[in-house]
């Protein structure tokens, strides 16, 4: 009969108590440790590396860890610990800002898969730039003639377009993730193109939102 191996309980190098499962702090003495190499935003928020995320649990994690890393708790500690609390807090905020936003999250995942940026591959779907030019002209026209009805309609149509893009993006990511870890070059190029289109649409949504006031 094989002797059962005793799972090794990580021990804190400082207090020698059990440090718990989290790589960045000791659960016994609260001491902070540096991030492991290749630690990602997903690791920072303790969430699986996938496009479909539960954003409410993301927020919960943010709150828990923000308290855990808060520089106020480390003000009296040695400077290395103070520094780590600052670095971890900043990285945590960056992780949350990135993963909370579905477009930023998509960009980040694509980056982790080794995909290219929008300046390296600017392609958009056929006919898309023509459509954008047309929408920009419409927006300009409505703004010049102060046509708040046209602006509101344009803004609503753009929001709908943005929603459709997000649905498509979610589907593309699910397809890629279902077919194994590595994304194929073709699938990544398709996602790149959808994200490029999203950048134009998001800009238009932004530019059309500040220009009209809802009637009161």
């Amino acid at each position, binding site marked *: 009969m094989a002797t059962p191996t005793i799972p090794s309980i990580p021990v804190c190098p400082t207090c020698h108590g059990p440090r718990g499962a989290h790589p960045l702090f000791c659960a016994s003495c609260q001491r902070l440790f540096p991030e492991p190499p290749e630690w990602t935003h997903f690791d920072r928020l303790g969430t699986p590396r996938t496009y479909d995320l539960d954003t409410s649990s993301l927020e919960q994690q943010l709150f828990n860890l923000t308290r855990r890393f808060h520089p106020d708790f480390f003000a009296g500690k040695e400077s290395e610990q103070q520094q780590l609390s600052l670095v971890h807090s900043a990285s945590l905020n960056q992780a949350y800002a990135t993963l909370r936003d579905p477009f930023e999250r998509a960009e980040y995942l694509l980056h982790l898969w080794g995909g290219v940026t929008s*300046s390296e591959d600017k392609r958009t779907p*056929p006919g898309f*730039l023509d459509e954008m030019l047309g929408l920009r002209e419409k927006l300009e026209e409505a703004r010049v003639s102060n046509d708040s009805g046209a602006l509101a309609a344009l803004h609503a149509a753009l929001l709908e377009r943005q929603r459709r893009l997000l649905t498509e993006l979610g589907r593309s990511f699910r397809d890629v993730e279902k077919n194994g870890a590595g994304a194929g070059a073709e699938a990544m190029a398709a996602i790149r193109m959808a994200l490029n289109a999203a950048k134009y649409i998001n800009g238009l949504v932004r530019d059309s939102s500040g220009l009209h006031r809802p009637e009161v």
Partner: protein
Amino acid sequence: MPYSDKVLEHYNNPRNLGSFKKDESNIGTGLTGAPECGDVMKLQIQVENGRIVDAKFKTFGCGSAIASSSLATEWLKGKTLEEAETIRNTQIAEELSLPPVKIHCSVLAEDAIKLAIKDYRERHGSSAGSPDVPAESTASS
């Protein structure tokens, strides 16, 4: 970083603003954009006997993108297609004193010039000599 005087000058007094009818046979249209900033640039050339007699642009973007395309239309007028092809974004960036973060605006203008020439040649396949195959090879949607 403030815009250079030349950028401001083009921004406030854009040259050759407007459009030609894009389906007329002596017109070439170049449409390009930068996803990072959402800029869209349309540049059109009117060609007679291999020479650009007029050029127009319409750009939705920052001051540098507007100035780059405005300057490009000025430079294009009177040039042969071959001469026009030699315009480089570095020349535009230099003329407008664009800061490094705005160099991509001048790249847009160079791309738009090339696309406009390509578009003209494609509709005028016979005169250019090279039987260009339309090659807007983007992945099918």
